[in-house]
């Protein structure tokens, strides 16, 4: 809100608390700024206002003016009188204007909230024990805060379809639906895939898909997130774990260079779901469905947990590090292949490692695919900008490792260090791989690790702390959600141990790496890991870096043209 100027703000009063907001601010948001919660279901800050749940009804008062002269009417004390409207109004459709007053706790407002709650609960099945939303359900919360505590409804409740499959990832329970229409508006306005709608009337109104269509766009799970009740549930998370057991950790989606902010819900070292975290400058409150499945890599079959030398499991990680260092020592034909999926800190240490072992070339594997213009960009590496900023590479990576392949063929390279990348998928043939000794640092077993002489296990994004730089040059940090597999010491420690074995001691702790980086890398100067705010930090990078021909097209909150010119 840095663009707000004080003289542009208007003063509104929420329960007699003055709060300054820009004119036109939604009164629910204005009340939130004053620290007052106006209960609401259908209102969502990133969707259009429809005002159909009626939960946010408040008393509305205007500053009183004389009708004939337009002069303010003053009371005995000299203050302008307030003209309270005789009927309540919905706060979500009321915009802030000078002197506007709302009451959220008056008798009228209270009775409105209680009445709406009672109507909403009339046909509610009250199956909280089997409902996945229990624990984060607005209906539960507001029933506790504004409900009467018991039901006066003795008639039979409505019957609606249950366990309706709307799409491959979403299941609908119509009886729980309170007809807020958030999901319908999301599909129309954000996902641009208008498949949901209401049929029938009155209390028989039912949410359903248009005939012959399914809710199967790549953003369908956002409807589950914004559903204020348990009507829409995720097939993947359904009946897996109650939400109150989940510890939510701030993380970053690694699906593309958008860097959507996420929350990783885990219990006792096992991840159960990934949900978006609001960041108005990056992903609003959304994320793609495909990014939510990435946690499955943690427990994948081919996960590497222990280091190995020449195909034999090495119980002692130090021995594997020594073996890797022996392969690098004194060689002058070593090539390094870094990854845009590694964190900034890891790329920095990897660069130092490449420098220390006199690498003849350093490559980065590029992953260009078609973006969807919303929250998946064309660059599927989350951190190519990090490799550029840390100096691991100085030009954008090519689509395939053709240069490295040619160098192997010309016998200019006899050792390759691959970090989190499968070389065979990046354009190196099995024949070429057989000509070189490979040191593989990675999370999962693949064709490269099978041919590697030394394999050192690393951690996934969910098991470590670190940071990425997204397509906007926004530095964003992710935190450890679950412990890594026993035997994998962590990327930074492995890299530092390798550097140590090559005779160049390097810091292994995150804070030490950051003090090193902030001293030597201009855009990161003065920064520390702990100082990165949870909404990220836009880096001030040289215009030469910004002007590179990046692959990304336009996505939500990112226009390539804007980042191409130096903002600083």
């Amino acid at each position, binding site marked *: 809100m840095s663009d707000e100027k004080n003289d542009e703000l208007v003063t509104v009063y929420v329960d007699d608390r003055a709060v300054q907001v820009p004119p036109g601010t939604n009164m629910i948001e204005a009340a939130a700024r004053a620290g007052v919660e106006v209960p609401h279901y259908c209102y969502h800050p990133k969707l259009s206002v429809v005002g159909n749940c009626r939960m946010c009804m408040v008393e509305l008062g205007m500053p009183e003016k004389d009708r004939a002269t337009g002069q303010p009417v003053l009371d005995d004390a000299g203050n302008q009188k307030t003209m309270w409207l005789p009927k309540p109004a919905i706060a979500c459709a009321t915009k802030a204007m000078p002197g506007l007053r709302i009451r959220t706790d008056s008798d009228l407002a209270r009775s409105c909230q209680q009445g709406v709650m009672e109507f909403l609960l009339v046909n509610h*099945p009250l199956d*909280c*024990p*089997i409902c996945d939303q*229990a624990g984060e359900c607005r209906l539960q919360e507001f029933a506790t805060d504004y409900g009467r505590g018991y039901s006066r409804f003795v008639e*039979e*409740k*409505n*019957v*609606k379809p*249950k*366990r309706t499959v709307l799409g491959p990832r979403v299941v609908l329970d119509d009886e729980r639906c309170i007809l807020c229409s958030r999901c319908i508006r999301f599909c129309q306005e954000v996902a641009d895939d208008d498949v949901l709608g209401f049929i029938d009337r009155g209390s*028989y109104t039912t949410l359903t898909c248009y005939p012959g269509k399914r809710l199967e766009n790549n953003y369908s799970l956002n409807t589950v997130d914004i559903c204020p009740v348990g009507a829409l549930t995720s097939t993947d998370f*359904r*009946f*897996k*774990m*109650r939400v*109150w*057991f989940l510890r939510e950790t701030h993380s970053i989606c690694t699906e593309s260079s958008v860097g959507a902010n996420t929350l990783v819900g885990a219990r006792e070292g096992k991840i159960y779901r990934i949900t978006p975290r609001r960041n108005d400058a990056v992903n609003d409150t959304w994320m793609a469905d495909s990014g939510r499945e990435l946690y499955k890599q943690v427990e994948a079959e081919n996960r590497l947990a222990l280091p190995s030398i020449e195909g034999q499991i090495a119980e002692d990680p130090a021995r594997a590090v020594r073996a890797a260092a022996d392969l690098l020592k004194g060689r002058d034909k070593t090539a390094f292949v870094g990854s845009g999926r590694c964190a900034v800190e890891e790329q920095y240490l990897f660069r130092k490692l490449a420098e220390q072992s006199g690498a003849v070339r350093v490559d980065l594997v590029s992953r260009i695919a078609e973006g969807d213009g919303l929250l998946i960009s064309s660059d599927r590496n989350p951190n190519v900008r990090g490799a550029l900023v840390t100096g691991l590479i100085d030009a954008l990576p090519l689509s395939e490792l053709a240069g490295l392949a040619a160098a192997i063929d010309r016998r200019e390279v006899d050792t390759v260090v691959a970090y989190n990348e499968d070389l065979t998928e990046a354009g190196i043939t099995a024949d070429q791989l057989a000509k070189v000794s490979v040191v593989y640092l990675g999370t999962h077993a693949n064709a490269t690790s099978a041919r590697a002489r030394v394999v050192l296990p690393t951690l996934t994004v969910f098991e470590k702390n670190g940071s990425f730089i997204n397509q906007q040059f926004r530095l964003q940090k992710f935190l450890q959600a679950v412990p890594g597999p026993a035997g994998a010491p962590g990327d930074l420690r492995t890299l530092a141990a390798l550097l140590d074995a090559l005779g160049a001691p390097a810091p292994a702790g995150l804070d030490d790496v950051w003090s090193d980086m902030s001293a030597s890398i201009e855009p990161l100067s003065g920064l520390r890991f702990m100082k990165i705010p949870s909404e990220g930090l836009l880096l001030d990078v040289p215009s030469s870096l910004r002007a590179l021909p990046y692959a990304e097209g336009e996505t939500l909150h990112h226009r390539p043209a804007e980042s191409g010119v130096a903002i600083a």
Partner: protein
Amino acid sequence: MAIVVQRKPLTWLEKTYLPQILGGMKITLKNMFRPKVTLEYPEERPVIPDNYRGVPTLVKDPNGREKCVSCQLCEFVCPPKAIRIWPGEIPEDAETAHVEKAPEEFEIDMLRCIYCGLCQEVCPEEAIFLQDIFSVTGYTRDEFKYRKEKLYELGGTLPDKHFKWDKKKEAAARGNAH
């Protein structure tokens, strides 16, 4: 501050010890004619009051439906973390498909259980009850982890009459008025 306790010298009668011996024999004689208060445990078993808090068990309703829907509230409330539930979905072709959710596995570690009864108190489905079993024995730690099968065997059937889920199924079969 020291207190000097004065000890009276014993009288002649007390020196014979006869009053004490006779007093003791009188108590013995009186108890010989009182009703017995001990039990020949384990052949004889005590009568357990209804509100006794013994081993927590899972119960079924009179139709034999497992009442637990694995809401995991007991797991949440359990102070010594003795309860562990693996929730699961009831397949759509099952007779109780309308309940949708049931525990895939349910485990109570009886070595951890402190018999507080919070699980029974919190259960929204009235599926877990602390019944009259007080003697838990076993040779290994594993034997004290009561799994779903054993918990239902111990719990039996609860003769309640509200049939919440059956009514739900009937209403669904009748359908809407319109």
